[in-house]
C-alpha cells in the first residue's frame, strides 16, 4: 500500500498546479496565450500521467525503499545548522557547527575526531572559497 504514496504525490502536484493556474492566472486565448495556459496544460498532463501510474501501480506495485530517519535527520540538522548560524556567526563557525550536527548520529565516530573534522572542513572552506576563489563571504562575523 505504501508504494501508492509516490503516484499520489504526483497526482497531488499535478492537480495543485492545474487548480492554482485556473484560480489565480489568466489563461488568455489561443491567439495570445495568458500566463495560466501553459501551467494548466502541463498540470493536466501530469494529473493524467499520475493517474495512469497509480492504476498501473495498483495492479503491479513497484517496490519502495525503506527510509532511514536517522540519516535524514542528520543531514537536515547539518544543513539547518549552516543556514541558521551563517547570518549570526559567519560561514566558518556555521561550517563547524554543521559538521558537528551531521556527524552527531554516527556512533563509531568519536567526539575528538568530529572536532578535528569540523575544524578541518572550516579551514578547507576558507582556503578554497574565500582565499582561493575570492568569493565575498563573511568568514567570521564581527571580525
Amino acid at each position: 500500500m505504501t508504494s501508492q504514496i509516490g503516484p499520489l504525490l504526483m497526482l497531488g502536484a499535478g492537480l495543485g498546479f492545474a487548480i492554482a493556474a485556473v484560480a489565480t492566472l489568466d489563461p488568455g486565448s489561443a491567439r495570445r496565450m495568458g500566463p495560466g495556459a501553459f501551467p494548466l496544460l502541463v498540470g493536466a498532463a501530469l494529473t493524467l500521467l499520475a493517474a495512469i501510474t497509480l492504476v498501473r501501480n495498483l495492479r503491479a506495485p513497484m517496490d519502495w525503499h525503506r527510509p532511514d530517519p536517522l540519516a535524514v535527520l542528520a543531514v537536515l540538522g547539518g544543513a539547518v545548522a549552516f543556514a541558521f548560524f551563517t547570518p549570526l556567526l559567519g560561514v566558518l563557525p556555521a561550517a563547524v557547527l554543521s559538521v558537528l550536527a551531521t556527524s552527531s548520529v554516527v556512533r563509531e565516530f568519536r567526539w575528538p575526531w568530529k572536532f578535528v573534522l569540523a575544524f578541518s572542513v572550516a579551514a578547507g572552506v576558507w582556503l578554497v572559497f574565500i582565499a582561493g576563489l575570492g568569493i565575498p563571504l563573511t568568514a567570521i562575523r564581527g571580525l
Partner: protein
Amino acid sequence: MELLSNLALGFTTAATLFNLSYCFVGVFLGTFIGVLPGVGPLAAVAMLLPVSFYLPPVTALVMLAGVYYGAEYGGSIASILLNIPGTPSASVTCLDGYPMAREGRAGVALFATAIASFFGGIVGVTVMVLLAPALAAFALLFGPAEYFSVMVLSLVAASVVSTSGALRGLNMVCLGILLGTVGIDINSGVTRFTGGVQELRDGVSLVVVAMGLFGISEVMVSARGATRSYATETFSLHHFLPTVAEWVSSIGPAIRGSAVGSFFGTLPGTGQTVASFVGYAVEKRVSRNRDNFGKGAIEGVVVPESANNAAAQTAFIPTLTLGIPGSTTMALMLGALMIHGITPGPRLIAEHPHLFWGLVVSFLFGNLFLLILNIPLINLWVRLLRVPHYFLYPTVVVLICVGVYSIDNSIFDIWMTLFFGVIGYLLRLFRFEPAPLLIGFVLGPMMEEFFRRAMLLSRGDPMVFLERPGSAALLGAAAILLVAAVVPIKSLLAGAGFRRPAHADEHE
C-alpha cells in the same frame, strides 16, 4: 587549401608557450572548480574574467574557454564518485557512472570519461573546422516552432532515460516543467506560483534544484549506508583500464554521442544538456547492452560524456559567428572579447581569423591537457572514496551549503535546497528518479517560451508545429522514441501490443 592555411594560422597562434600555458591554467582551474558541488563553469569563468582584461584577446578567450570545458569535465567527476552532478548535463553521467563506482569500478568510469570527453572534444573541433561557416547559417533555419519541437524531443528522451520506466520519467519531466513556471512569466510580466515570496520572483535557481534533488537527497540515502566504502583495494593504472570488450563496445557509442553532441551544440541555448540526454536515450534503444543501462554500463558513461564535450566545442559556433550567446557562461566569454573592442558577429571569422582559428586549435591542446592531467588524477579521486563515509558526508553537506550560499549570499537559497532535498528523497523512496525532473526544469521555461512565441506568430494556429517540416520531423522522432520506449518490443511480438498507454499522444 584554405582550410590548411586556416589551421596553420590557428597553430601559429595557439601553439605559443604563452597561450599554451594559459590554456593549461584554464583547464586545470576549470577541472578543480567543476568538482566542487554548486560551483559550475559560470562561477569559474566569472572569477577569471577580470584577469582576462590584462591579456591579449586570443589568450583571454583561450583561457576562459579552457576553464569552461574543464569545468564541464570536472562536473562529471563528482557525478561518478558521489552522484552529485556539477552541471545539468552531468546528471546523465550519474545514471551509469555512480552505479559503476558502487561496484568498485569508479576508476574505470573516470578513465572512460576522460577518453570519451577527449574523443567528443576532438570530434567537436573537427566539426568546427570543417563546417563552422555552414553551421552558423544552420542555427538561423530554426524558428520558434523548431525549437519547441527540439525541446519536446529532449524531454521525451529524458523520460526514456529513467530506469524505473518511461511513464514515471514523464511524470517527473512534467513536475520539472511545472516547477520551472514559478516566478515572473516573461510573456506577460505576471508573477506565478510564488505565494508572495519576493525571493521567488525570478524563479528557483537551477543550482538550488540540482543540489537539493541530487546532492542533499543523495547524502540522505547514503550517509549511513554501507560502512565499507566502494573503493577498490588496488590503485594501479592497470586496474582502471576498461577491458578489451568494453573498449570495443564503447566505440559505437562514442561516435554516436559525438555526432549528437556536435549537432545540438550548434543550437544556441540547448547545447550540452540536450545533447547528453538525447544521446543517452538513443543509445539506450540501439545498444546491444541496453538491459544494463542504469546499472553501471560503460556505454552509459561514454555517450553523455562524448556528447557534452562535443557540444561544448560546437557551442562556440553560434556564440562567435552570430554574436548570440547560448548561455550566461558564453555571454561572459563575449564580454571578454568586447572589453578588447572585438564585437562578435557574422564577420568575426573574416575580420579576426587568428582569434577564431587560434581558439579552435587551442581546443585540441586543451583537450589533450585535460587527458594528460586527468589520467593520473583518477588515482587521487578514487582514493577519495576510501575516506570513511562519516568523514565524507558531513563535508559534502557543508560543501553543498557553501556552494549554494556563495552564488548570491542568500540563506533563502539554502532553505530551498533543503526543501528540494526532502522532495527528492521522498520521490526516490517511491522510485521516481530526479534526472528527468531536472531536465524538465531546465528546458520547461524555454519550451513554454518557444511554444507561446510560435503560437503568437501563427496567430493562434497550433498546426504550425506540423506544417513546418523541421518541426514535424523532430516531433516525429520524439513520437517514435516514446512509442519504442513505452511499447516493449517483446510484448509487441507476443501480441500484447495494446498496453500502450494513452499519454503517448500527449506529446504530438
